[in-house]
């Protein structure tokens, strides 16, 4: 390191009053125009601004800063709470939607299974009744039989229509009731 570099490194500390020049350094400054010019700059920059630096009250400044920090932290907490509420609300809505899709789909599938021809066939197989008298019937005859079975509900006769009980004797009525009751 050259004497100029050594001197340059010590200039800020000397200018701030933390250390002092040695005799050798003073001699170098007297002899070296480059170092002298740099020293003049470093010394001058120390003189810029002390007036503005000392005009504020650090206590008041600190109080103002801390008040702002506390307010900002309160705002952060409020924002965090709102953000979490939104997140949880969104998750709940998504979960509700998922459940609706899952259960709605399952119910629809169950309904479809109940109405498919395959299930009808299975049901008819399960409740198959052998009717050998129809085995030799022609298609027209079978259709006629089916038409007879598929009478609309409103047009079909009911027990109430057919059997009002008005023309049944007391003995017959009691006999019927005893038969029902076993």
């Amino acid at each position, binding site marked *: 390191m050259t004497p100029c570099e050594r001197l340059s490194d010590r200039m*800020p500390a000397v200018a701030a009053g933390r250390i002092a020049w040695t005799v050798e350094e003073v001699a170098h400054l007297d002899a070296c125009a480059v170092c002298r*010019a740099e020293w003049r700059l470093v010394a001058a920059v120390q003189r810029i601004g002390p007036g503005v630096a000392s005009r504020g009250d650090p206590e008041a*400044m600190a109080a103002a800063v801390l008040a702002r920090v506390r307010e900002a932290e309160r705002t952060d907490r409020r924002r965090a709470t709102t953000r979490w509420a939104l997140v949880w609300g969104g998750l709940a809505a998504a979960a509700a939607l998922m459940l609706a899709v899952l259960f709605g789909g399952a119910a629809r599938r169950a309904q479809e299974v109940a109405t498919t021809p395959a299930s009808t066939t299975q049901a008819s197989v399960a409740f198959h009744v052998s009717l050998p008298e129809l085995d030799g019937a022609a298609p027209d005859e079978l259709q006629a039989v089916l038409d007879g079975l598929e009478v609309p509900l409103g047009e079909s006769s009911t027990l109430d229509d057919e059997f009002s009980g008005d023309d049944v004797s007391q003995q017959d009525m009691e006999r019927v009731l005893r038969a029902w009751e076993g």
Partner: protein
Amino acid sequence: MTDAGPPGDVALVAAYRRGDERAATEIVRRHAPGLTRYLHGLGAGPSELDDLVQETFFKAFRALDGWRGESSMRGWLCTIGANLVRDGYRRGKGRVVLSIEDRDLPDNSDPYEELAARETESRLAIGLAGLPRLQREVFLLRAQQGCEYDDIARILGTTPGAARVHYHHAVKRLRELVS
């Protein structure tokens, strides 16, 4: 028995994190003057200095987790302040004007020397305004704030060698103006 001396910045920050607000006041008291001079040197006008210094401390206290004591607290504060000055300049919110209205007078009673010192400071202020940003910041951090090159390099995201080169370029340009 040894004299403990004043607590360092790391200890003050730790105390503030534990909830001791007096530590925050001490940090402000310790660094506000140097920070103010630095921002003034960067070109912030006297009318905006108080706001800038307060904003710098506000941002610093909000981001204390980002300061781990690797660089000096003063250098870190200066960086935050310099960014604020730059942002204000970019937004055009208040042109950055170098003002030397509030400078202190040198301690000498010789009117000729006083005049010469004023002239030097005036030229220096103008010269600083004309320097490239990195040269200006390195020069102020080194010559005014007394930061080491290692510290300046960490603060400005460069190498100590590059910081030294920026400083010497700044000195050379300022010397031409002031001489």
